[in-house]
């Protein structure tokens, strides 16, 4: 069956971007909103159809999900090493198509309400479409180089959208920070790609990931500093993934990225772009698993677990609700990385891989919902800070209910979506690495606690003095909330393991009751603690915070990661390295060149008086010269 129509899925948003971008000033805002929404709607319908076609009609042959590739050669280096452009259809790319489509469509619809009356309305939709195009391209990439190109494109669209309020200095700084930090991590990615290409002779995912292929079988052929070069390449590629997915220590850009408009946070910094790192590791999963017996995969697991724990602790102390959500995103991304890290390959062993993708799917829904809900609240009270909120449940019933559903889903209460995926992650961790399991279960408790801390803080607690009486958002904003809430409710019931698994065979996942009971218990403890602390305004929370003393302050200052980066860049790099180089460049290199130029100008100033502009002077010089020459010749002749 023909799958080439899938190429339209990225191309439609690209066309929308070009249309809105080129005719930015000529299109009325109302029209541009519809163009954006309908473009995405078309892509979304195609994505859902592709998913249906793939999973139920053509995908499965003899019980194994096939990989379909439709590509053309773009650049050819040698007989084997070439860069293709094309689309790759396999379970995870189709799953990502669905995620990107749904969240992006919802965010487009939501933005029509949220951005109403904003000066750059059309520009905003153009950027959103550019992002959707890049994300689809990233998901469908057939080789490392193609994924890298779209990787940078999503980085650029993220930069453009974080800096959307470009008159605000903090937004500009955040945009630059996000771009530079991820770009720095992408340097690792690029080096990794080049090493991989050099030693395996291919960039192609299919060839690389084949467990019987030469790339995996010959991993031990060359080694460097005690590890296989392929492992080094994978670790470098993972650095790129860690940068995009805000893993330690590249997470510093994500909280600042919240300066962008809230729909952008929901789409890019919660549901889609930030999972690109997870997707990349999942895309190369057979390599990570087989090369050097999973050494790189272990690193992935620990980086994920530590990031998850770190972010959950910081999230408890933040007072800006969007920042709480940002750290929560980072924590959940860590969870997914961790699940990939503890995964095996065959059948039920691959439960971590499947759980990670499952969590990616459910997390996209409920985290987008949380952000959009937070945006709705911010829209109503015009503040990001918890201290300005309280008792909003009476004014915003729909936001309240949907936010509660999302909070329960992320906390992991059955039967909401998060419970199912989180349970699988914990099962995988329990079976493979007990230490990571304990971290995971602790983070689950923290997640429930900080999420209900902001839930109670926003919707319960003491009512604040509001300048304008807050009111429920318009339908264009509440419809996406309700739709995503529905998905957060039922999303977990999808038999995900049948569709997505590491070896593409599919297996039947069962609920592990004792582990599920522990997880739910921990989650309940977190919720109850939050209920005691924050449902009614009381001093208990402050007392506990004081009891933790300096640790609380460290956490609320995000463990000084920003300060460490500033110290390294400003004090060491700029002052000790860049400044002397700049001095050499300015004084020595520029000095020489400018000296030559200056001398030329000086000389010409001195002799330009000869050009008097009087024809007779020139004639005199000419005749005089001729006469002198004639005399010289005559003199020479006669002697």
């Amino acid at each position, binding site marked *: 069956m023909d799958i080439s129509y899938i190429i339209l899925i990225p191309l439609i948003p690209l066309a929308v971007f070009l249309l809105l971008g080129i005719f930015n000033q000529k299109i009325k805002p109302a029209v541009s909103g519809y163009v954006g929404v309908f473009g995405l709607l078309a892509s979304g319908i195609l994505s859902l159809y592709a998913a249906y076609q793939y999973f139920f009609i053509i995908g499965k042959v003899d019980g194994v999900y096939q990989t379909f590739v439709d590509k053309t050669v773009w650049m050819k280096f040698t007989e084997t090493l070439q860069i293709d452009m094309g689309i790759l259809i396999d379970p995870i790319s189709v799953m990502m198509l669905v995620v990107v489509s749904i969240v992006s469509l919802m965010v487009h619809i939501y933005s029509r309400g949220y951005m109403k009356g904003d000066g750059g309305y059309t520009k905003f939709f153009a950027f959103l479409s550019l992002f959707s195009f890049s994300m689809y391209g990233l998901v469908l990439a057939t080789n490392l180089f193609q994924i890298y190109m779209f990787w940078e494109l999503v980085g650029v669209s993220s930069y453009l959208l974080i800096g959307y309020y470009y008159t605000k200095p903090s937004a500009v700084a955040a945009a630059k920070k996000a771009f530079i930090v991820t770009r720095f991590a992408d340097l690792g990615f690029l080096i990794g790609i080049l090493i991989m290409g050099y030693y395996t002779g291919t960039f192609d995912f299919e060839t690389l990931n084949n467990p019987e292929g030469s790339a995996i079988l010959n991993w031990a052929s060359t080694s460097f500093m005690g590890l296989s070069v392929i492992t080094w390449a994978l670790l470098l590629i993972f650095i790129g993934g860690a940068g995009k997915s805000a893993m330690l220590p590249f997470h510093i850009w994500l909280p600042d990225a919240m300066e962008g408009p809230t729909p952008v946070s929901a789409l890019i910094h919660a549901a889609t772009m930030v999972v690109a790192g997870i997707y990349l590791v999942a895309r190369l999963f057979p390599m990570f698993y087989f090369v050097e017996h999973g050494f790189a995969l272990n690193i992935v697991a620990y980086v994920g677990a530590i990031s998850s724990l770190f972010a959950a602790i910081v999230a408890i102390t933040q007072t800006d609700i969007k920042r709480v959500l940002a750290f929560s995103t980072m924590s959940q991304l860590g969870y997914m990385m961790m699940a990939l890290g503890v995964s095996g390959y065959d059948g039920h062993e691959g439960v971590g891989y499947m759980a990670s993708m499952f969590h990616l799917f459910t997390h996209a829904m409920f985290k987008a919902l949380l952000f959009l809900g937070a945006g709705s609240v911010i829209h109503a009270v015009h503040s990001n800070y918890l201290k300005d909120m309280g008792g909003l449940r009476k004014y915003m019933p729909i936001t309240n209910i949907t936010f509660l559903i999302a909070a329960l889903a992320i906390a992991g209460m059955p039967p909401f979506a998060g419970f199912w995926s989180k349970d699988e992650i914990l099962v995988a961790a329990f079976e493979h690495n007990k230490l990571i399991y304990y971290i995971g279960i602790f983070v689950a408790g923290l997640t429930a606690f900080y999420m209900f801390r902001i839930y109670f803080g926003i919707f319960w607690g003491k009512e604040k003095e509001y300048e304008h009486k807050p009111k429920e958002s318009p339908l264009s904003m509440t419809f996406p909330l309700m739709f995503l809430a529905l998905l957060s409710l039922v999303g977990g019931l999808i038999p995900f393991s049948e569709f997505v698994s590491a070896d593409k065979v599919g297996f039947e996942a069962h609920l592990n009751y004792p582990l599920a009971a522990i997880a739910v218990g921990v989650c309940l403890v977190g919720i109850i603690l939050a209920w005691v602390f924050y449902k009614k305004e009381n001093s208990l929370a402050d007392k506990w915070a004081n009891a933790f003393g300096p640790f609380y302050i460290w956490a609320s200052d995000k463990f000084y990661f920003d300060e460490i980066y500033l110290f390294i860049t400003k004090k060491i790099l700029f002052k000790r390295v860049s400044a002397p180089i700049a001095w050499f460049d300015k004084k020595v290199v520029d000095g020489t060149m400018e000296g030559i130029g200056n001398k030329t100008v000086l000389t010409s100033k001195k002799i*330009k008086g000869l050009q008097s*502009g009087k*024809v*007779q002077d020139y*004639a005199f010089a000419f005749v005089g010269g001729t006469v002198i020459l004639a005399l010289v010749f005559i003199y020479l002749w006669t002697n």
Partner: protein
Amino acid sequence: MIDGISIYDLLTLTTILFFIGVYGFITRKNLISILISVELILNASVVNFVVINKYLYPDMLQGVYFSIFIIAVAAAETALAVSIIISLYRQINSVEVKDTEVMKY
């Protein structure tokens, strides 16, 4: 061949004529006078052609034809120069050479 006048006398005459022209070209302040000086230089060369034709190759006519040719070109050139001078006069109300040095440096 003219009796009693050698080729040297005639060449001396044209040389003197030529340098009078050059002197006038360099020292005159008025553009019209400069134009007249240029004509003197041209005439000196025309006479040279005729003289050399007559004294050295008396059975040929190229020098004479060249002279006629040069006279025609000189006429055209004079017409051009005068029209330039007139147009210049309309612009700056002067035909003094000192007023036409805007193109220096």
